[in-house]
């Protein structure tokens, strides 16, 4: 691609000819404020916050959609531009419920930050404002349209990124609002609870159902035994809530913070990731060698599961019957651990911390009560953001915490368990185990490079001894749709598929810390965060699920062997077929 020469604020730059003014400015380290723009998926020029002056243009132009050309002269910071941006912010505020004091996004709100920077007058335009009821029908996703600024980033995330489109702009003019078709509540639609709309939202109009009070109450209840376990990717992201750069591993501080909150046990979900691999790798080999239903498709992403049930019900028999690592942990805890320690499972309150809003739906699914009817494996699933909020509320000084370790006997996870949090990680972990089972000897190389990386759909063929296993990996449900359609048409023939609902996998889950547009548009969070997990894997001696001594002990003491009758009762589940809305 050729370059063109342009001037920005009087200085010369050479930028790729296909850039927008916004991209050119970014390359020159000048940030232009944006609200509606999201790279590749929402380039609609609606909010007009990104106004700049271009010499020769009739008025200010929207930098996010305006292409550069040779000799162009751009001014980004004139009094007229600052005034125009300020005016547009004031217009946005005229129909915005300004309740910053208690807003869930206060201090991480893009609108609040811009208003502060531009010194706007909140009440400059006083007039009629809409009032909307909060949609809290969903167990995972709450919508407060009184805070919505109609940037449509959530709509783009749902439709373009996820290929779902259960939300959109309804009605017109002053009545325009984001909702679902025929104004049904979100819980009645085929929303998969992925939360990608939440992390796309610049303001406090979308957020997860907050379950932190339930957890605080349980901790304060002396009759309850309260345990918590942290999913593989949370340690790679929670630091962001406390000012660390994306891509900082804060496992030790995270554990210390959880302990400071007063849980009776603080555990590592990487262990049940390993347990999942044992169950799933053996399930795969069984189906592969004995003519079972193929391709086998992974089942650890509850957003993907619900997607499959709504949009591809013909594939529900292909799903692995394994519960997700979160559910396996709770199930294990309320059966094996409870029996061993003489605790009534009814007195256990089990919490998981996950990067995912869909897991709030998963905890209440059918077939997730291993210890008896009505005794849910997991009582409450909280997101990375909620755990960070709990620590903030409890006055825990995260940055200055020392490193601590998970509690025994569930402290140990392998490198294979660690990479679960990135797209391709589950496939790689399963292959490490399946290959060694088939070969009967250790692999020379543990890395399965072809299934790594942020590509939406990845395919590879591996030789395990004298058999070939064809695998595919997809992340983001729009990519899953592409892959499944090509499997359906026969164009793609595979034996084993990994699907994660969120693009890039759990590291980019809908429950992860929000990052403003300026970060999301310029940093690839998927790879930066995934690097933490791959580095952790590389640094470990224990890199295979089947070599995890804690997992081996579980089979010796309790489950006997993978896919045993007992394992099926406790660690496996079933699915339903759902309609579309």
């Amino acid at each position, binding site marked *: 691609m050729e370059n063109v020469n342009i001037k920005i604020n009087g200085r010369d730059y050479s930028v790729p000819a296909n850039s927008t003014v916004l991209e050119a400015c970014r390359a020159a380290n000048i940030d232009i404020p944006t609200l509606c723009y999201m790279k590749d998926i929402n380039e609609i020029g609606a909010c007009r916050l990104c106004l700049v002056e271009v010499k020769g243009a009739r008025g200010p132009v929207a930098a996010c959609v305006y292409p550069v050309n040779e000799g162009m002269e751009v001014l980004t910071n004139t009094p007229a531009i600052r005034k125009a941006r300020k005016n547009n912010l004031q217009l946005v505020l005229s129909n915005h419920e300004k309740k910053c004091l208690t807003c869930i996004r206060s201090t991480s709100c893009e609108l609040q930050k811009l208003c502060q920077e531009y010194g706007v007058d909140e009440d400059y335009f006083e007039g009629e404002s809409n009032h909307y009821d909060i949609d809290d029908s969903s167990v995972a996703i709450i919508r407060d349209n009184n805070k919505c600024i109609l940037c449509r980033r959530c709509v783009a995330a749902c439709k373009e990124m996820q290929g779902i489109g259960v939300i959109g702009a*309804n009605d017109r003019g002053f*009545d325009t609002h984001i909702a679902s078709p025929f104004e049904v509540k979100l819980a009645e639609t085929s929303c998969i609870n992925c939360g990608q709309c939440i992390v796309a939202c610049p303001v406090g109009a979308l957020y997860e159902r907050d379950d932190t009070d339930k957890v605080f109450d349980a901790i304060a209840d002396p009759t309850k035994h309260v345990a918590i376990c942290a999913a593989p990717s949370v340690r790679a992201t929670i630091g962001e809530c406390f000012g660390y750069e994306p891509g900082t591993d804060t496992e030790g501080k995270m554990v210390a913070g959880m302990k400071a909150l007063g849980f009776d046990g603080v555990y590592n979900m990487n262990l049940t990731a390993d347990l999942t691999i044992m169950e799933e790798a053996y399930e795969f080999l069984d189906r592969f060698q004995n003519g079972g239903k193929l391709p086998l498709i992974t089942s650890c992403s509850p957003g993907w599961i619900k997607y499959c049930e709504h949009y591809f019900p013909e594939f529900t028999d292909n799903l692995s019957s394994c519960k997700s690592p979160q559910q396996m942990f709770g199930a294990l805890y309320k059966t094996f651990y409870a029996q061993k320690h003489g605790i009534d499972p009814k007195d256990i309150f089990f919490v998981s911390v996950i990067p995912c809003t869909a897991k709030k739906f998963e905890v209440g699914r059918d077939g997730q009560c291993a210890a008896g009817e009505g005794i849910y494996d997991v009582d409450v699933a909280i997101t990375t953001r909620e755990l960070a909020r709990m620590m903030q509320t409890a006055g825990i000084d995260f940055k200055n915490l020392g490193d601590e370790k998970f509690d025994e006997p569930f402290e140990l996870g392998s490198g294979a368990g660690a990479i679960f949090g990135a797209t391709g990680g589950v496939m790689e972990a399963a292959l490490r185990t399946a290959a060694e089972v088939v070969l009967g000897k250790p692999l020379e190389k543990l890395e399965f490079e072809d299934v790594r990386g942020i590509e939406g759909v990845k395919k590879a063929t591996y030789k395990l001894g004298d058999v070939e296993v064809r695998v595919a990996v997809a992340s983001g449900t729009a990519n899953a749709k592409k892959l499944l359609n090509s499997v359906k048409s026969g164009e793609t023939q595979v034996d084993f598929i990994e699907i994660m609902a969120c693009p890039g996998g759990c590291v980019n889950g809908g429950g992860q810390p929000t990052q403003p547009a300026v970060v999301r548009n310029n940093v690839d969070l998927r790879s930066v965060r995934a690097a933490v997990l791959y580095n952790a894997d590389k640094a470990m001696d224990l890199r295979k699920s089947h070599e995890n001594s804690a997992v081996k002990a579980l089979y010796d003491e309790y489950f006997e062997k993978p896919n045993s009758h007992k394992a099926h009762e406790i660690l496996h589940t079933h699915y339903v077929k759902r309609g*579309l809305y």
Partner: protein
Amino acid sequence: MKKKLTTVMFRGTKAQEEQLIAVIEKYRDTQGAMMPILQEAQEIYGYLPIEVQKIIAARMDVSLEEVYGVASFYSQFSLNPKGEVAIAVCLGTACYVKGAGDIIDRISLKLGGLQAGDTSPDGKYSLEATRCIGACGLAPVLTVNGEVYGRLVKEDVDGILAKYM
């Protein structure tokens, strides 16, 4: 304006559905197919209920919201069927100034609280507030199934409605 949703039962026929499917097939591969499809669907059914929009979404392989977003945006599309007795009250400036608001209130009172934009659940009555219909000399004006009644005072409403009951 916020569009009113219907409470009237869907009474689409097999023949209508076949017509609709033919329309979708006709436009399927054209750019911006949604507008002409919705227009013709409305001609077939008289309005665009969820049953119809679902067929369009499924056949076009788009989400229902994508159809609904367009249907609720343009004022030419109606989500409510016209009643057997379709009442339209002009709310143009002249009629408004001469008390069209009172007329609407009176109709609403007589028809169990029916609001502008509504169709009664049994499909019998619909009430619409229209823009100027060009009969300002007769203001305030209403029409019932196309028949015009002018120079109204609110007391006239009862007699007019009685004719259609």
